[in-house]
């Protein structure tokens, strides 16, 4: 029927389909547009530099990388509140490894191994011991951070690289220059996109590939969509549930390595605070359903970009003091989720009403016919 109306409706339905599948891109585009307006309103011009700033931000790269794992966890119907603390743990371990060995490879491996271990602990407790993931990771969130808080004070400053409250990379190590100056803060000449952004993009592509093109990826969705059916189809449900935590751990490890290289130090008392919430926000902005089973990992990439941009907008409005900024962050987040959850509901109501009207009309016609 729609096709009869010609090309115009065709474009309309194409757009409607695209909106449904890639709404996160539209959301990001709109948020970016708003950002450009606020820049202009402040009397500046919107430049490429603003976009590279978004791409280089902590919230994009660090939180984004963690959010990829968080998305897998949420798709299986679980949650991980410990990623912010695990990030601190991995960064601390990674920096200590660097200070002791001066080896790039070992620094990276230490971060990844620590992350995988953190994830495994979460996963085994949630998946095999069948404890609610919310509670498990709430516990490990406290544990991972406080372990680093006490370690930073008790370990020799030669290893922590700093006097009391920080883990810091020793700048006199020969690999410091390569890690921190070249990789951590450098960018690709010409387009001035930071190297660390490419790490995030690479991780996104890998996770996207796993989720879309592997049998394992399909089982992750199946577990979140209908656990019982997945189990009865032979899926190792517990294994999948544990594995997503381990993958997240590895991603947190990589994010921690990147963070260490970008900043050069980590402060257990303050670094990575609330990052689990930012990661969840990025996942939700990316269109992943909190009830599990649904979501596109590409969306998480754009979700992270959207989240960063929202932050930039709020910071760029001079009337908003730092104290009130979180309020606006929260409001925007709630508004976006509201659209996500209420939108389909309204649509269903609309369709149902239409169906009811149609069936009433049919009934009237039937009656008229039988009388006639």
């Amino acid at each position, binding site marked *: 029927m729609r096709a009869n109306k010609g090309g115009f409706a065709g474009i309309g339905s194409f757009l409607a389909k695209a909106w449904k599948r890639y709404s996160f891109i539209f959301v990001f585009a709109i948020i970016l547009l708003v950002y450009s307006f606020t820049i202009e309103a402040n009397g500046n011009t919107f430049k490429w530099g603003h976009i590279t700033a978004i791409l280089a931000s902590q919230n994009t790269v660090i939180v984004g990388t963690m959010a990829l794992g968080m998305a897998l966890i949420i798709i299986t119907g679980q949650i991980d509140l410990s990623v912010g603390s695990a990030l601190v743990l991995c960064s601390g371990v990674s920096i200590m490894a660097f200070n002791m060995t001066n080896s790039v490879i070992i620094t990276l491996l230490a971060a990844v191994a620590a992350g995988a271990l953190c994830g495994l602990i979460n996963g085994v407790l949630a998946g095999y011991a069948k404890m609610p993931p919310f509670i498990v990771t709430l516990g490990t969130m406290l544990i991972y951070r406080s372990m680093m808080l006490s370690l930073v004070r008790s370990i020799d400053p030669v290893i922590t690289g700093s006097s009391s409250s920080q883990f810091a990379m020793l700048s006199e190590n020969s690999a410091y220059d390569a890690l921190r100056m070249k990789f951590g803060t450098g960018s690709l000449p010409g387009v001035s996109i930071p190297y660390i952004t490419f790490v995030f993009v690479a991780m996104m592509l890998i996770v996207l590939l796993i989720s879309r093109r592997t*049998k394992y990826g399909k089982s992750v*969705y*199946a577990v*979140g969509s*209908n656990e019982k*059916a997945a189990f009865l189809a*032979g899926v*190792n449900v517990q294994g999948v549930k544990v594995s997503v935590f381990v993958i997240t751990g590895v991603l947190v490890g990589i994010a921690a390595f990147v963070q260490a290289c970008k900043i050069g130090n980590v402060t257990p008392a303050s670094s990575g605070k609330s990052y689990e919430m930012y990661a969840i926000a990025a996942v939700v902005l990316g269109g992943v359903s909190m009830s599990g*089973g*649904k979501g596109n990992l590409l969306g998480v990439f754009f979700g992270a970009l959207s989240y960063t941009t929202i932050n930039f907008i709020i910071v760029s409005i001079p009337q908003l003091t730092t104290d009130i900024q979180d309020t606006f962050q929260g409001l925007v987040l709630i508004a976006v989720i509201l659209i996500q959850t209420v939108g389909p509901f309204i649509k269903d109501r609309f369709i149902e009403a239409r169906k009811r009207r149609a069936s009433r009309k049919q009934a009237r016609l039937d009656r008229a016919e039988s009388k006639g």
Partner: protein
Amino acid sequence: MAILEMQHISKAFGGVIALSDVHLTVEAGEIHALLGENGAGKSTLMNILTGVINTDSGEILFDGKRYPNPTIATMERAGIAFVHQEVNVVNDLSVFENIFLNRELKTKMGLLNRKRMIEEASELFTRLGVDIDPCAMVSELKTSQKQLLEISRALHASAKLLILDEPTTALSTQEVEHLFGILRKLKAQGHSFIFISHKMPEIFEIADRYTVFRNGTFISSGFIKDTTPHKIASDMVGEQYLDKDYYEPRPLGETIVELKNVTGHGFADVSLEVKKGEIVAFTGLAGSGASEVMQTMFGVLPFEGGVIRVEGKSLRGGIAHFMESKLAMLPSNRKENSVVPDMDILDNTCIAEHCLSKNRQMISARAEISRYDELRKLLWIKSESPKDSILSLSGGNQQKVFLARWLNTKADVLLLDNPTQGVDVGAKAEIYRLILECAGRGMTVIINTLEIPEIKKVSDRCVVFSEGHVAKIFQHDEINEHDVMLYSTNAINTRGGANHAG
């Protein structure tokens, strides 16, 4: 005097007629057995009576009053209580709190009057002859006590008519006797009961009158003392059908599946041998153990004793082990146990095969689509694109996709647990056609179903389960709905009503 009269009740869901001009009359102070196979319309009628769903036409007269538009609240107030199959009590509250749920007695201060509630509860229990401590936590009660609690609660809310939906399924023989004693006592006090049960001996023990439905129509009604289990069984299943066009005997191979004295959840000491290429039907009422045996044969449920052998190899462990030994199981209850709602048709088809070929993780979309197309043609699945949502398909077509899911694993033994549940007549016939086709190609099929007429159409043998045991194994020629019904309701053992060999 009749306490309840339901006249000319009709109800259709979409195009499916659930009830067609049926009537039911319950006298005051009687226990009325409502009988019929699954899908006969009993639940629909009870849901109409309790106001859960609306009737399309007909009228309800209860206790001298007409109820044109019954709602749950009005029917409850009128004095009708539904005691469900799954006991509906709140486990985390105490017994008396359950009785007074939503009707709590308050003191003048507006606080809960615990003392009076406990007093009233124990008075109620004494009156009924129920031995339950009003202060005990419900979670500590036995199932039978929970059932009595639910009945007591209904009576406390001054119910005049109680609907008991298979109240004895979870009870032991003594508990059943105790329950029946209480029912008789209440009957003498003027309460009426609609008693839904599949167990013939019970019906003949407790009920005064009966009504039989079949396929949504009224078949018969009368006094229990004037009828026999045989008569009721044939009223329930009907005399016609048994079209033999499907079945033809095939040469069978060696034994492929062997159960030896297997004891597990809900069944004990089950022994069975199934040959390659054979179609075996399991049948039995809820709680008979038929479905549990099937689930145990696929590693869904663990078993405690005995041996399960597939092609001579003893099997134990989870589903993955059984799948590797080329077993497949289509579970019952499609929506809960098969549908992965967020995945498309293609992924729903391939998910089980993915678990078998874990070593090659990458998916070739093109190969999977062409494989799906083959299965789609074989199974006559009506789908537009394999990328459409599984939910876009009708129930019958969904079920075919799940059959495809298991055929795709290249299994040798196909276990089908109630495969025609909730699919329309056409799709049903196609599923049976497919079962015969699979067997023709050397697959072994075991099907658990309550639809006895269907069993005759396809199966070489029929295993009747009753109370966790194999009650009888019929060869194809011996399969006879009458006898199957008698064995599954266990009427044969108690009433001894029949001699019907072959």
